């Protein structure tokens, strides 16, 4: 499966006079790991939300293709069922819904199955062991009272259960201390493979010390201004984003 982003322009409900993403092109195939790096306000999170079809993020030009099929106007839940996933920067808290029930509902819908609570418990336990997550996690209310690290690990756990073909990780490293970052990165690495394409969106280079991308893209002012291999990340580390901004103009 390939996610192809063609000349994408995105406008956000809160800022209606101009596009935040402005003519972005990118293709991510299963088995590939891409990193998009960019400064604040470069449009990274807007891109992530637009890929998942969040209401309020309007595609004004261009399109999104999943294996050649136009999904620009396909609803979010349908995109997820077709194999897209977004690990969120700020996972929402849902008191009253426990992790296991939530994930079973999602699993049944994404996989088109109807596994019982007991069957699912077993499946979930395996994934949790793999990611070294405490079993009690399953009975907690979704993200409620979770630490920053727990929230991000919960996003990775969801990825492990739903097994998307293309996963977008929006600033999954933000707000994590080094131990939490390692744990989350290990989790992502254990899931990466020929079946999963990953688009890692980040501000900082440090997560790339743990997850090695094949492709690195620099985003500025709503578009990709430079693409390259992993060495591009090190270059960024030395020069900062400013050089690329000027480049873009």
């Amino acid at each position: 499966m390939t996610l192809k982003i063609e000349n994408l322009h995105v406008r956000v409900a809160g800022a209606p006079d101009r596009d935040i993403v402005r003519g972005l092109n990118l293709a991510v195939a299963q088995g590939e790991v891409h990193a998009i790096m960019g400064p604040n306000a470069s449009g990274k999170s807007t891109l992530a939300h637009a890929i998942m079809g969040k209401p309020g993020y309007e595609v004004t030009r261009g399109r999104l293709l999943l294996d050649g099929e136009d999904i620009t106007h396909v609803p979010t839940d349908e995109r997820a069922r077709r194999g897209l996933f977004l690990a969120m920067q700020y996972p929402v808290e849902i008191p009253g819904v426990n992790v296991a029930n939530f994930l079973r509902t999602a699993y049944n819908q994404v996989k088109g199955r109807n596994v019982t609570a007991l069957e699912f418990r077993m499946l979930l336990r395996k994934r949790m062991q793999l990611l070294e997550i405490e079993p009690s996690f399953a009975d907690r209310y979704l993200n409620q009272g979770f630490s920053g690290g727990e929230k991000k690990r919960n996003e990775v756990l969801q990825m492990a259960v739903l097994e998307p073909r293309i996963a977008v990780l929006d600033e999954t490293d933000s707000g994590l201390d080094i131990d939490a970052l390692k744990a989350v990165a290990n989790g992502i690495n254990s899931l990466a493979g020929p079946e999963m394409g990953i688009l890692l969106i980040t501000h900082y280079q440090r997560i790339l010390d743990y997850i090695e991308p094949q492709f690195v893209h620099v985003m500025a002012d709503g578009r990709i201004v430079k693409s390259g291999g992993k060495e591009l990340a090190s270059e960024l580390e030395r020069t900062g984003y400013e050089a690329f901004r000027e480049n873009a103009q």
Partner: protein
Amino acid sequence: MAEPLNERKVVALSEAQGEQPWLRERRIRAWRAFERMPMPDPRSGYWQHTDVRDLDLNAFSPANGGPAVQTLEALPRDLAGAFADPEQSQAVLIEWNDRPLHRPSQEVPDCRGFVFTDLHTALGCEFVRDRFMTDCLPPEAGKFVALHGAFSAAGAFVYVPAGFSVKVPLRAVHGLAGGGVAIFPHTLIVAEAGSELTFVDEYYGGNGSGLCAAAVEIFVGDGARLRYASVQGLGSQAYHFCTMRVLLGRESEFESLVVSLGSKLSRSEAEAVLGGEGGKSEMFGLTLASGEQRLDNRTLQHHAARHTRSDLLYKAAVGGSSRSVYGGNIRIDASAQNADAYQASRNLILDEGARAHSIPTLEILANDVRCTHGATAGRLDDEQVFYLASRGIDREQAERLLVRAFLDDIMVRVSDESLRARIEGAVEAKLTSTSM
């Protein structure tokens, strides 16, 4: 065409059942009270938003004069166990169209030891005569209570002697077939000092038109602990009226949960009278309205003694073009110093056409009390819906998850597991059968 309801019919039904004169006289008194009272007016505060003026009560025939119907259709599946399992069978009363299908016990009680039997059997006992619609809920309490008093001969009677603790929850299941039938199930519970009991009334029915005018009277003795729940899952063309009143003794504790799921129109009144020092009541309500339903809940927290405490949380989720009403009154008598009362009404509105009304009323005559109340109404959270959608969960499933989440803080209060499972099952069935 059924014969209209009238005094002659009240007497005829009483005679047909071979009732004692005292009971017949009480029915006549109730009927006359019913006739004196006008149909409730939606312009008056107590019935605001619920209009029953067009309800033709003559369209319904009391079931208790008719033949017994031997059918379990429309009753929940788990009841089958009551016929086989002797343990369970002593804890369940099952009635269909006001006729017992299964009785926990058949002996006329003497009320010296524990009793759980059907009301018809219990009415032969003097103890019951003194408490059936007298001090707790006299027929004059309301239009539909009076109607109930004129015709009610079915339901449950429980007597728990002092210091006695009933280990399993007792259940009374009231079935309404529909087809223009009216039922009048009554529940009378007397829990003596220091006793403990959990009791559940469940109302189920078929899809035809029907009327259920129920009443519940509960006496909680000094230091006794009583948990009460009612689950209303009547058919979509049924009318349901129920008044529950509990009289609380000193240092007693009462907890209630009123679950409103079924019927076309439902009006449920729950009143706790804290008449003994140190008494405590906690009342919960859970309402799911869909389609064209009109579900109305009223409560009264009446503090009539010092150092009494009451807590209340009623929640309603409304979808389609349904309406829910919550009217809550806190009354603190001048004699009830140091009373502490809390009341909260929370509403979740799922569709543009649905409405949820909350009407709090406070009547506070004492000066040294604590009393707070609050009402909120909200819609589903867009961020939560998006989060669920991003995991492949469609709108319908997301709504179901979020409605259950909304009701969760009430569900977790139900400590008996089998009861909680049944309530969850009924909620789940409602959520899956209708697009809320």
